């Protein structure tokens, strides 16, 4: 699978920002296994781009293709299939169920199309330093802990593309590195592409193609 952006321009973007962008109104193809790091200041449309790619919003001109399929033409039912097997995401606002425990949140994603056995949840949680938080209700966790829960949840399924929207904003450097290593490891297992958006280039990223939005 590959994702292609053809002349994609958000409806709300100003002409000035559009002119200086390396993404808007450009032709970009993202292949499997590729690591793409998109950098931009606040308000440039980073989250919008991730939402466009995941099919949550359609307020843009141009076309986004999953292989040869224009995703604007996909039904919610077809999207559910892509989201189960082909594309995973870590939202900036995390999108967790507050009234469930950390483990239940992760399990809800895992059972859709299990890539890992249930035991892997504990392993990953330990790696990211939230091993003791699994049975805690999400609403009682800190934002940093929630971010790590969202990261583990995104890695429970098979995928060709992993979309990350400022996933480390509330993590200290040690935890950032741990999380980044886990994500690299999981992407390698699947030979998956990674589309990572953040405010500035991260120093520990290696071999990424950096694009300024």
């Amino acid at each position, binding site marked *: 699978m590959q994702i292609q952006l053809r002349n994609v321009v958000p409806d709300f973007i100003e002409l000035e920002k559009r002119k200086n962008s390396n993404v808007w109104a450009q032709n970009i193809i993202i292949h499997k296994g590729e690591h793409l790091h998109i950098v931009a200041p606040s308000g440039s449309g980073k989250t919008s781009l991730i939402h466009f790619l995941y099919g949550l919003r359609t307020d843009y001109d141009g076309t986004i293709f999953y292989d040869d399929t224009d995703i604007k033409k996909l039904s*919610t*039912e077809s999207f559910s299939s892509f989201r189960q097997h082909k594309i995973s995401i870590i939202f900036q606002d995390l999108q967790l169920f507050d009234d469930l425990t950390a483990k239940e949140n992760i399990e*809800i994603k895992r*059972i859709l199309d299990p890539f890992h056995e249930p035991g892997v949840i504990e392993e990953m949680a330990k790696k990211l330093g939230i091993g003791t938080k699994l049975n805690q209700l999400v609403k009682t966790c800190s934002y940093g802990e929630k971010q790590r829960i969202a990261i583990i949840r995104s890695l429970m399924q098979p995928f060709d593309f992993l979309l990350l929207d400022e996933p480390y904003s509330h993590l200290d450097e040690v935890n950032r590195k741990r999380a980044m290593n886990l994500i690299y490891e999981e992407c390698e297992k699947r030979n998956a592409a990674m589309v990572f958006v953040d405010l500035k280039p991260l120093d520990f990223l290696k071999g990424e193609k950096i694009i300024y939005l």
Partner: protein
Amino acid sequence: MALSYKKIEPLIISGKNIFSKWFGYFGLGIGVLLLLVSLQMFINIQQLLKENSPRKSGYDFISISKTITNENMGQDNRFTNADLINLKKQPGIDGAAPLISNQFRVKATAGDIVPFNTDLFLESIDNDFIDTLPPGFTWQPGQVMVPIILSSDFLEIYNVFAPAQGLPQLSAKTISSVNIILECSGPLGMQNFKGNIIALSDRINSLLVPKTFMNWSNLRFSGDTAVRASRVYIKTKDANDPKLISYLDQQNYHLNKDKVKFSRIKSILQNIVSALGVFGILVIMLALMLFSFYLQLMIAKSKDNLRLLLTLGYSPKWLAKSVAKTWLPVYLFIIIIALIITEAFHLWFLQFSFVSNANLSYFLHWSVWLTAILLLGLTVFINSRLVKKELNRIM
């Protein structure tokens, strides 16, 4: 591995709003029960009254005569051939037959067993109109024995006054052994015949003889062959047809309402149970509406959770199906309970019904079962449609 709905159920179904949920269940139960009971009772009444009504091959037979008023009193109020032709032309009337009476004098004596002596009248009608027609109800010239069909009402009247007159009371069976001597006389001569009652009629209040005998004897004793009848029987599919009744009223025809009482009773009872059934349907509709409000409210409350599940990749079709399926066991339970109570009502009806009838089954009629299954299908279908619609709205 099949995806389990159990894990996400708490995200969708909250324990709140239980009042509207239980009220919906209760209403649905009452409505289903009313519908099933009224359907079974409708069928029971239909079957019971079919046995007891004066219907023959699905028709009602009603006797009509011209109304005698002060104005037409003293005139010839008998039906003419033209009257009969007009009657037969009317929509709703499938046949008309006059009761032809004797135009000569008939005197009856019953010999030694029942020592009585009386003037008598005889009538004849088309065989099609007779409810109890035995094979021996025929007569040919030269035959001394004349078969008679007697009105069962007449036998009843006879048994009422017989003891006071010193006459023996007769059962329906013994009446056939009474030999009646019919002395027929008129301007053209006289002759004796032996009358034999071979059947009783619930429909026709008369002493019926075969038409062949009546035609032959009218000609033989009075020389009169014209058809003039005071009473005419009409054959109709529905004796309660307002158009028919209105036509008969216009023509000043008097209707023997007593003979259609079964049709009327049946009609009234069936109207009552039909009304009960319609009420049942209304209650079901209200209950389903109430339940759908509960569903809408529930989905509205769990809107954010449902949206997130869809975002994570849950299939909208699977979600709609799973949510709708949640209530299947409850619906099944409600309908089974309603069927059990309906069966109890049915058994009670069989035990205490005013007419005992061995032909009614102890089990519920198949149409009641079919209705129950259709109701189950309908409730699941409506739920699933509603859930799908609500999910589409939040996507």
